[in-house]
Structure formats: C-alpha cells, structure tokens
C-alpha cells in the first residue's frame, strides 16, 4: 500500500516544493451568493498572496456530502484545510484525521468548537449578530410590538445560537417587545414566504418578522410586500445584498444584517496561509488594505472579522453579490 509514503505529500502530480501553498475551503453549500462571495474573496487573496485557493462545496447542505469533499481534500494532501461545517460535531473527527496527516486545519463562518481546529475565522460574534438583528428590527418597530422569526434548517447550529441571543436580548432590552413564534422553512424561499404569510394571518397584531438566513430574509420581505403590509409589518434578516436590494428599496425590508463576506473569504485564505507557514497570529493583524486591524483572541483561538454590518437601501448598491 501507498499509505506510508502518502502522508509525505501524496499524489505525484501535487507534490514538489516549487508548488504554491494550497489552501482549501469547504463551504456548507455551493452556489449560494454568500459562499460564492467568500470564494471570490478567497480568490482575491490567492492572487495577492501567491497561494493556490481550492474551493469545493456540496450541492445540498448535508453533513455527509460535505464529509466526502473534506475526505478528498485530505487525500489531495492540501497544506491548509478550512471548513464551514454543516454539522460541527461530525466535522471534529475529520479535522482530527486531517491534522494527523500534517494538514493545518481551521473553521470559518461556523465553528466546530470541540475540534482540533487551530483557528476559527469568525465573521462577527454570535452576540453581535443576535443583538444587531434585534436592534435594527426594534428601531423599525419603534422598540415594541410582537414579532416572529422565520428560520431555516431546524438543526442549523449557528442560526439557533443567534435565535437564543435574540430571545434573551429582546427580553432584557425591549420589555415591550415579544417573540410570538419561531418557524423553520428549510432552505426553501417559497416555504419561507408562505410561512411568513401564515404568521401574519395567525397574529393580526404582528409588526415584525426576522428572516434568519439568506433564503428566508427575502422570503419574509416578499410575504409582507404581497400582503400589502409594507410599512405596518417590518422585516429584517440575514440576506445577501443583491437579493435584498429590491426589498430594501421598496421598504418591505428595513435592513439586512451581514458583514463583508468577500473580506471574510479574504481573511479565511490569509489565515490558511499563516497556518501553512506556521506563523503565529498577532493580537491585531494587518491583513490587507480593507482589513488593517483584525483582532485575534488567543484563548479562544478566534480571528474576528469585525462588528456586523447593517445593509440598508443607502449602502446596498456597494455590494456585487
């Protein structure tokens, strides 16, 4: 068997010192603007930093399909492997396998806490996102009223984490506001729309809706628009700029909470390079012109992109994804 010589730097074609450093990133799901934007950011970094950026994602947001891809990257013996796990728990052992083969491992966008990942590239703190969502909805709703959340995958770890923050934060900061229901529409826009409609019918006094992910954010806005309740029911969500633009324009969506996804991709690629070269992270790192001071928390091993960013009709045009 070739097992032993493999860990050296495997496939004939890919080994060899003159080759650039190879940083691989596995998104949760391919073909959605969010991760494709991360990809273009990573590509950008690759060009700037002279590394090879490998990007491959499953066609369904499915832990098993993602594992197959991770396995193939391990087989390709890349220098750094970074994953946005669909299921953190199931990713942990795979990262272990990679590490055992001498591959530098990290997570981005979604963490795998109890794994051997050396760093988590965090777009914004869970706290930050949850609070930003709540705050911008509350500004629209005037600090009080009933609202509901249309989430996506029932089991999506980070969505559920944000929702928990929203619950607590709303309770503590906005005593006059109340979350009346939380529903799960999967990655399905149509389902998100009709569930949002049902929620408005079920709660005539509903004045707010949150679209917790990139497919439900435009979904809830569309529902409000169709119901002709623009201006009386306010929506916010985690939507990618271009998909949200029309709704931000016509006011059916008040704001979209996101972050500069391309920069997140850039930072991810950069972090991969640092790991591959064995560099330590500073407390604050000068990554690029856009990212002059990225903070690193050595205890939690987290690189933080920065505070979440509120996209409104004023700045939505600045983004091309």
């Amino acid at each position, binding site marked *: 068997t070739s097992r032993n010589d493999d860990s050296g730097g495997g496939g004939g074609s890919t080994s060899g010192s003159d080759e650039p450093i190879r940083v691989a990133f596995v998104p949760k799901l391919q073909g959605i603007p969010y991760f494709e934007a991360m990809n273009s950011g990573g590509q950008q970094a690759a060009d700037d930093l002279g590394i090879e950026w490998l990007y491959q994602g499953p066609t369904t947001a499915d832990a098993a399909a993602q594992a197959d891809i991770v396995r193939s990257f391990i087989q390709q013996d890349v220098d750094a492997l970074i994953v946005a796990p669909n299921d953190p728990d199931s990713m942990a052992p795979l990262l272990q396998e990679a590490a055992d083969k001498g591959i530098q491992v990290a997570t981005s966008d979604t963490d795998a806490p109890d794994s051997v990942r050396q760093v988590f590239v965090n777009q914004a703190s869970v706290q930050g996102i949850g609070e930003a969502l709540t705050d911008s909805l509350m500004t629209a709703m005037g600090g009080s009223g009933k609202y509901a959340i249309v989430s996506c995958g029932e089991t999506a770890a980070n969505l*559920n984490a944000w929702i928990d923050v929203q619950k607590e934060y709303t309770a503590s900061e906005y005593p006059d506001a109340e979350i009346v229901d939380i529903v799960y529409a999967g990655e399905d826009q149509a389902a998100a729309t009709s569930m949002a409609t049902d929620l408005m019918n079920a709660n005539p006094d509903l004045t707010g809706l949150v679209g917790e992910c990139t497919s439900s954010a435009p979904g809830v806005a569309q529902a409000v628009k169709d119901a002709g309740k623009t201006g009386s029911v306010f929506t916010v969500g985690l939507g990618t700029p271009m998909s949200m633009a029309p709704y931000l324009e016509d006011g059916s969506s008040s704001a979209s909470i996101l972050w500069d996804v391309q920069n997140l991709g850039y930072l991810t690629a950069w972090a991969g390079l640092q790991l591959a070269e064995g560099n330590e992270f500073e407390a604050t790192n000068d990554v690029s012109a856009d990212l002059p001071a990225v903070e690193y928390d050595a205890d939690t091993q987290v690189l933080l992109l920065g505070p979440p960013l509120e996209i409104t009709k004023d700045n939505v045009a600045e983004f091309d994804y």
Partner: protein
Amino acid sequence: MTATTEHPSPAAPAAPPEKGRGLFSRALEALLTQRVVLLVVLIVLLLVGMSILDAAGVLSGSFNADYLASALISAVPLAMLGLAQLMVILSGRGGIDLSVGSMVSLTGVVFGFAYGLWGWSLIAALVLAILVGGVCGAINGVLVAYIGFPPLIATLATYYAYRSLALVVSDQKPVNSPVIQDFYSAAQSVELPLIGGSLPLIPLGIFTFLIPTIVIVWLLLNKTTFGRRLYALGTNNVAATWSGINVKPNRMAVYIASGVISGLVAVVTVAQFASARPDAGTSGNGMALPSITIAVLGGVAITGGIGRVAGIVLSTLLIVWINASILLTLPGNDGTQFQLLALGVVLIFASLLNGLTRRKYGGI
C-alpha cells in the same frame, strides 16, 4: 449461480446448451443480460481508467487503495439501506420503503438519548435502536401487509410522520455528549489484524455492520425457506397463497427487516457524525431515494421477485467510487455537480442496456 431464484430472464438457462456457441458470445450475453456482470465490468473500467489518469498526473490527488478504502465509509449506510430496499422490493406488490431515511433519523435520536444521555451501555442502546427501528418497520408492515396499503403510499406517509417525530422529540437539536464523540471510533478506519499491514486502512463500519448485514441478508435470501417464500410471494402473491405460504406475516417481515436495518444504519450514522442528528437520514436528498437508486442499479426488479445481494454490493461500490473519483478529477463546484450527472447516466445506461438486450435474448 442461483438460476433457481435469481434469474431475471429466461436468457442464460432457458437457452438449450448449444454446442456451437463460443465462449465470447456467451460472455457477451451474460454481460448484456446480467446486471451483476455489467457492474463488475464497469467497476473494473473505472479503476483502470482512474489509475491511468493518476499515472498521467492529471488528478489533484493520488488515486490509490487508501482513498478507495476511506471512501467506503459512505458505502456502509448506502449498501445497508440498499439491502433493506432489496428485501422490500423483492416482496412484490409494488414493495418499496420511502421511510428508511426518516427511520434512521428517528432511531438515531433515540439511540443518541439512550447511549449519550441516559448512560445506557452500547449493547443496550444498540438493542433499543434495533427495537425502535423494528417497531417503525412493523407499522409500515401492518399498513402494507394487513391493511393493504400500497407500499409507496404507506411509506410516504410514515416518511413524513417519522421525520417530523425525529425533530419533535429531539427539539430539533443534534443529541450530543462526550460519549457519542468518542463513539466515532466505531466508524474510524482501522488496520486489519495479521494481514492488515499490507492493506489500506478500512472503515471499521464495513466489518462491524456492513459485512455482517450482507452475509445475513444473503443467507436469508439464498439459503433459507424465508428467502424462498419471499421470492415466491414477490413473483406471484396469489400463487404463493395457493402454495400454502402465509403471505401477510412474510410480507410484514421484510418491512420489519427494513426498519431493523435502518436502526443499525442509524447507529452507524451516529458514529460517523459523532452526533445524533434528527435530520441524519432526511437532510439533503435524504437516504431513501439513494438507497432505492442503489437497489435498482443493482438489478432489483421494481416489480418484485428478482434481485441479488451481489448486485446491491456492487452497485454501491460503483457509485461510491465514481463519486470519489470525480472529486479527484474535477476541482471546484464542477466536481459535486458532475456526480449528479454520473449517477443519472450510469443508472439509465445500465437499465436500458439490460432492458433492451433482454428482448434480444428472449425476455420475460
């Protein structure tokens, strides 16, 4: 050869042994009319082709035994559920089980609770998983065998019901604990004792779950009277009744078997994911449609009465290895997209080839 139970067409055996026919023409006929042979050939072609590409250095990673072996980890649930479908589809009357994925999710969660949270022993939790799977399957069985629901409908209904239950009982959070984290070792790749050194690491699940299941199902189908009764009622339900076969309990049994296997797969999946996910068997395309695909690609006649264990094993190997190969051949999103194309083309090509040639060689 088990012409006795397993020949889809009168082809090979029905033809009187003509002296004149050369070895080649008989080999060709076998290739064209027998799925198992076709699958073996396709697998060989794949391996040879990929090795050439590898030698030519156009692959992004080395295509070697280790990779093939590590890819087998996804073959475990696929093949096991394929075997479940084999038995169910064999039983005829439109036998099919759309609920396997949901049963995996549900039993997985229950297993997770028992083993991960209630601190049950592995054996106890395993038995529980088998029981829960068996009960889910029994519900399908009663609906189909005793009340007379068309299987597709009964299992479509329970597919919806079980997946929803899995989410409800788990409060839609993966069940998790250190114990379950460590349970991943049950899915890890290991070195075989003795000869192991000269072989690649093989996922443990192959030995602990898949091969035992293969052997048991194969023995059931080919070496037991239950298998005969199954083929009989799958071929002609009425004639089976008139031959003194109690069709209802036997038909029910295959749905229970399907549930039990799903229970085992649930355990495998918990090990693989190192957590009990309430959507383990239903996320993405779910597990039901792929397992049915494996079964039909393996040559199981959807109308019942025809199907072989070897076909399931081989079609799983083919699919798993094709997918693994594509990932090494096509970088970026293309890779995962072309996996879909490959699956579709192989499935249609194989069925059409056998379907059409069966006519030439005198079909059913």
